[in-house]
């Protein structure tokens, strides 16, 4: 499950000169775009009502974060919901995924439902959830949980089912119990693919919170964007959207970092680090060399 951005261009390698030149090119292109946008709105080539000038967006940033500081409480609310819904959805997904994966009988009978669930846009159920749970945090969390349940579920399921046959034979030939096979083989082997599912789930959670807040316009970043748009304060709406861009990027980087720690054996630097730690631990225990 490679990230789309990874395939957009060559990796940042090469000498200092090349790297500097590449960055300067990037900066020049970016600057030109921003400048064109600014000029476009000032000359009213672009309707300044819907496409606020970059300078206005920066002013709005300053206002909503510093002078007015009104975005913070919405940020807290939204991020809190994302984390709660993500945690609930992934715990449910991983648990159900392993239960279904480990039981061949259940797996056979649940398959049609998985296919139906996969074909249905999960977000369509959101109004029903609100009807059932009422307005408020619980229905928002339920919506987020719904949109981020599927990836961990399906990835855990496939990780648990696709256990390496030869390794399974090895464990059996060593006389391992079912529990030992689960703990020492099946679950660890599924970790990288579960982590890939978690990454998708967290990204989905961010979209989920926006949908939930678009429907219930009381608070949160989604509600704030709606309010600004309705008041035709597009510069502030853009400032909110760019805030989401930054959060999305932070989530992406954070999950990548977590993957390096949890599924360390799929990363060269992770292996080097853990290898050293284990060596040190072995030495500290005074075990044989």
């Amino acid at each position, binding site marked *: 499950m490679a990230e789309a951005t990874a395939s957009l261009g060559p990796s940042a390698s090469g000498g200092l000169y090349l790297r500097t030149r590449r960055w300067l090119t990037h900066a020049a292109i970016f600057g030109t775009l921003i400048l064109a946008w600014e000029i476009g709105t000032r000359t009213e080539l672009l309707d300044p009502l819907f496409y606020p000038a970059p300078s206005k967006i920066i002013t709005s940033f300053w206002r909503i974060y510093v002078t007015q500081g009104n975005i913070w409480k919405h940020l807290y609310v939204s991020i809190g919901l994302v984390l709660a819904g993500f945690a609930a959805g992934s715990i449910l997904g991983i648990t159900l995924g392993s239960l279904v994966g480990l039981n061949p009988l259940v797996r056979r009978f649940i398959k049609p439902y998985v296919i139906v669930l996969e074909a249905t846009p999960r977000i369509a159920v959101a109004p029903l959830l609100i009807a059932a749970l009422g307005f408020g945090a619980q229905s928002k969390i339920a919506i987020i949980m719904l949109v981020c349940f599927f990836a961990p579920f399906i990835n855990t399921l496939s990780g648990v089912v696709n256990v390496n046959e030869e390794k399974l034979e090895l464990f059996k030939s*060593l006389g391992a119990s079912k529990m030992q096979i689960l703990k020492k083989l099946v679950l660890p082997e599924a970790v990288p693919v579960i982590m890939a599912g978690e990454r998708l789930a967290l990204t989905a959670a961010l979209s989920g919170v926006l949908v939930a807040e678009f429907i219930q316009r009381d608070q949160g970043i989604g509600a704030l964007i709606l309010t600004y748009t309705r008041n035709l304060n597009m510069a502030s709406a853009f400032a909110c959207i760019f805030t989401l861009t930054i959060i999305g990027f932070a989530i992406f980087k954070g999950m990548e970092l977590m993957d390096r720690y949890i599924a360390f054996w799929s990363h060269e630097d992770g292996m080097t680090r853990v*290898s050293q730690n284990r*060596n040190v631990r072995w030495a500290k225990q005074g075990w*044989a060399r």
Partner: protein
Amino acid sequence: MQRHAVRSKASPDQNAPVVSGSGVGKTFASGTVIALEDAGFSVPKGRFNSLVGPSGCGKSTLLRLISGLIEPTSGSLQVHGEEVTKPRQDVAMMFQRATLLEWRTAIENVLLPSEIGGRVTSEDRTRAMELLKLVGLGDFAFSFPAQLSGGMQQRVALARLLQTGADVLLLDEPFGALDEFTRERLNVELLRIVTEIEATTIFVTHNIAEAIFLADEVYVMTPRPGRIAKIIDVPFDRPRELSIQTSPEFNHLVEEARDILGAH
């Protein structure tokens, strides 16, 4: 008994077979595929036997039957005089791929059999470290499988095999995925090690020269249905040098095996 250094060192009951079978057969699936038919054999302590033949001759099936991973549909199969019904502590198996756990360091992989057997003791750790040194990986104890070459990974698997403490070793084309040079070197080391620990070894391969080079006795197997067509006795002393492969006697044995396999 001068021919086999190992056999002359064996215990008094050296003639009692460690692994034996009579009329062993295995039919798969709907009963249409006869993987193995009427296999009769007997392997004394410390002996090295090769099973050689093309795909479908039942050599891997026979090995898995001895390991207790699968059960025979007919006949009787015994290890240390006991009927094999499930995997045993005194029988250990090694596969074509190293099947190491990627999230464990080399030493932790070697310790896996001890962990599955119960609590890991300091003797287990000492032994695991000694075994890694024995296979030439003393400096790589804390490396992860992905940081090791294919040959090194198989050495770790070999150390793990020995860590079980089993005296019956079953090897299913253990070096088959490696390049020729690495395979030859590992074969020589394998022979030295199993000779040293007096293990009873059964080695599956589709390479005739490899089968003869390693074994005291070669079971030549033919397909459809899988069966032991001939047992060839190999009269070379252990330890062996790679150079015996150029001797006329060795080539004569290769011819003999090839004739049997070619007739099919």
